[in-house]
């Protein structure tokens, strides 16, 4: 094997310009793929992190039908205390669950005494919400959370609304909400802080204390309409969702029908479609890499065989077994793929490192996304393995042709 590789390396060095060009093409392909995978992966991770860690959580539990009518924020699909208790018990039994935050979502009129607009609000238990949404506090652009995420009698409002209504932290505002029985109730609040808007559902919601929400809505019971769940590891999402669904299947209404729905974040956020598009692009760019390597190596190996027909005739005539001639040309393809992969990977890792030293940021909607590209070792190995494998496959036809060559015809070749 060693002697074949040595001879293959010399033959590649003999046509060094062509070898350099082909390797360059493979290097370019590898760099393009690894950079795209790392940058798109970083973008996805940042966006998913922002969505799950500041708004949605990884999983949400609602009454059946609530998500379908979530635009209206209905109060008649609240989860009653008994069901809530069963949900909390089911979640406590799952070791994958890190934190749980019950919410009471509702719509209200927001007035600064001169103007009025609508607002979507979340009644929350501050400590539990902080535990379930660790990035929520980072969205604060004005005001303070020194005494907790949201204090009783105070509000966190979205940035756009604050700007539009010219409201600042410390200002008093009025919330007017329609209660479950159709009556209307109003209450004054002090603006505690202003939150930066983020992409996706709930990204422009306001927050108030759960007790204030219940008072405003005149709810006597400990009712909620959304339970956000944070997992210790997002990779366990689908498994945990399935376990939770199974655990909650027994919570039924008086008609014996299942009462609750469990949704994962990707079922709730439109960003999941963007994430799927990124995955698709990722696949396409990998297919392109395979195409580049296949065509580049095949081209160079076909040329190598064509240019060395007499040489192949000579080595065949002096008794080189066909499988060894096959091995010789396969080794050339293998070396080309290997060298391209090693240099391309090294270059990509350097570029990824540079992108972490000098981070790239860009505006995504109203948000500024700062990328911190990273790539898993497994991903690098997998891509490298595919390239080397494709390089060998691309050499197969020319190598096969060389090994089957008739020595007399080959020796006569001019």
């Amino acid at each position: 094997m060693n002697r074949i590789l040595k001879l293959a390396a010399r033959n590649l060095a003999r046509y060094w310009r062509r070898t350099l060009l082909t390797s360059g093409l493979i290097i370019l392909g590898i760099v393009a793929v690894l950079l795209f995978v790392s940058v798109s992966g970083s973008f996805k991770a940042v966006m998913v992190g922002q969505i799950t860690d500041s708004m949605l959580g990884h999983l949400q539990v609602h009454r059946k039908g609530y998500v379908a009518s979530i635009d209206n924020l209905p109060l008649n699909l609240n989860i009653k205390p008994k069901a809530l208790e069963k949900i909390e018990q089911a979640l406590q039994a799952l070791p994958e669950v890190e934190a749980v935050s019950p919410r009471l979502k509702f719509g209200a009129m927001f007035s600064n005494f001169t103007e009025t607009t609508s607002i979507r609000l979340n009644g929350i238990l501050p400590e539990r919400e902080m535990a379930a949404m660790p990035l929520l506090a980072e969205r604060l652009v004005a005001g303070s959370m020194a005494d907790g995420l949201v204090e009783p009698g105070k509000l966190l409002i979205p940035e756009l609304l604050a700007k539009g209504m010219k409201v600042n932290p410390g200002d008093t505002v009025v919330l007017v909400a329609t209660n479950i029985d159709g009556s209307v109730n109003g209450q004054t609040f002090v603006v505690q802080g202003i939150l930066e808007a983020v992409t996706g559902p709930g990204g422009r919601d306001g927050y108030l204390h759960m007790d204030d929400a219940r008072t405003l809505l005149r709810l006597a019971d400990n009712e909620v309409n959304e339970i956000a769940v944070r997992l210790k590891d997002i990779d366990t999402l689908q498994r945990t969702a399935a376990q939770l669904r199974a655990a909650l299947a027994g919570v039924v209404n008086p008609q014996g029908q299942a009462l609750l729905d469990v949704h994962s974040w990707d079922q709730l956020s439109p960003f999941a479609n963007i994430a799927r598009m990124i995955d698709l692009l990722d696949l396409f760019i990998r297919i392109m890499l395979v195409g580049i390597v296949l065509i580049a190596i095949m081209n160079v190996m076909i040329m190598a065989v064509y240019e060395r027909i007499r040489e192949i005739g000579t080595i065949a005539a002096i008794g080189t077994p066909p499988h060894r001639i096959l091995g010789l040309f396969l080794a050339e393809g293998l070396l080309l793929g290997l060298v391209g992969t090693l240099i391309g990977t090294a270059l990509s890792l350097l570029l990824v490192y540079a992108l972490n030293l000098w981070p790239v940021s860009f505006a995504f909607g109203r948000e500024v996304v700062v990328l911190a590209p990273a790539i898993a070792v497994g991903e690098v190995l997998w891509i490298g393995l595919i390239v080397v494998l494709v390089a060998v496959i691309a050499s197969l036809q020319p190598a096969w042709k060389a090994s089957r060559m008739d020595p007399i015809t080959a020796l006569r070749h001019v």
Partner: protein
Amino acid sequence: MSLVHAENLTKTYRAGDVDVQAIKGVDFTIEPASLVAFVGPSGSGKSTLLNMVGCLDHPTGGTLRVLDTDIARLDRRAAARFRGEHIGFIFQDFNLIPVLSVAENIEYPLLMVQAWPADKRHARVDELLEAVGMTEQADKRPDQLSGGQKQRVAVARALATHAKLVLADEPTANLDHDTAYRILELMKRMRDEFGTTFIFSTHDPKIMAEAEVTFTLEDGRLTNHRGDA
């Protein structure tokens, strides 16, 4: 036992729609350790005959036995193995492998065809380098050698595996007369030293005079035979 024995040997090619009979019922015998020339004008069938003796081509009729092996029965792989074990080749254009040094070219059949152990390989290469007078040039690449030097290396490569039979198709055609004679002298010396049979083809009358046995071919038939074969 004769080294090569041909009886009523024929070879017919298909060229387009026409059958071309290149060898037409040839009989000859070649004994071990001889220096044999097949001579004749271009197109007389010399190369075709050499190709068959070298197991590069199959006869279409008659019998051809090389080292008591019926050549017609060898398939592609078996023929390659047979060549690797028993036959050496010297080509008109030398056909050295350009990426290998002189020593590596000689070593090639020992390494890639017969897989000799390293110590035996190196000893054999040194022996052959000395025999053909190329020790000083051992590390040079073929493009750094003269035509005569290249053919010396080719002779050494052909002898590397202790081949019983070395076939040389027009080995002196690309060499000047002095160099050509020196190569023939080298072949004779190698024949004497290693007991190898050299069979070469030529249409140069001065070169053919150096052979101990000569078969003259004309239009695919043996028309003359000189010497003890």
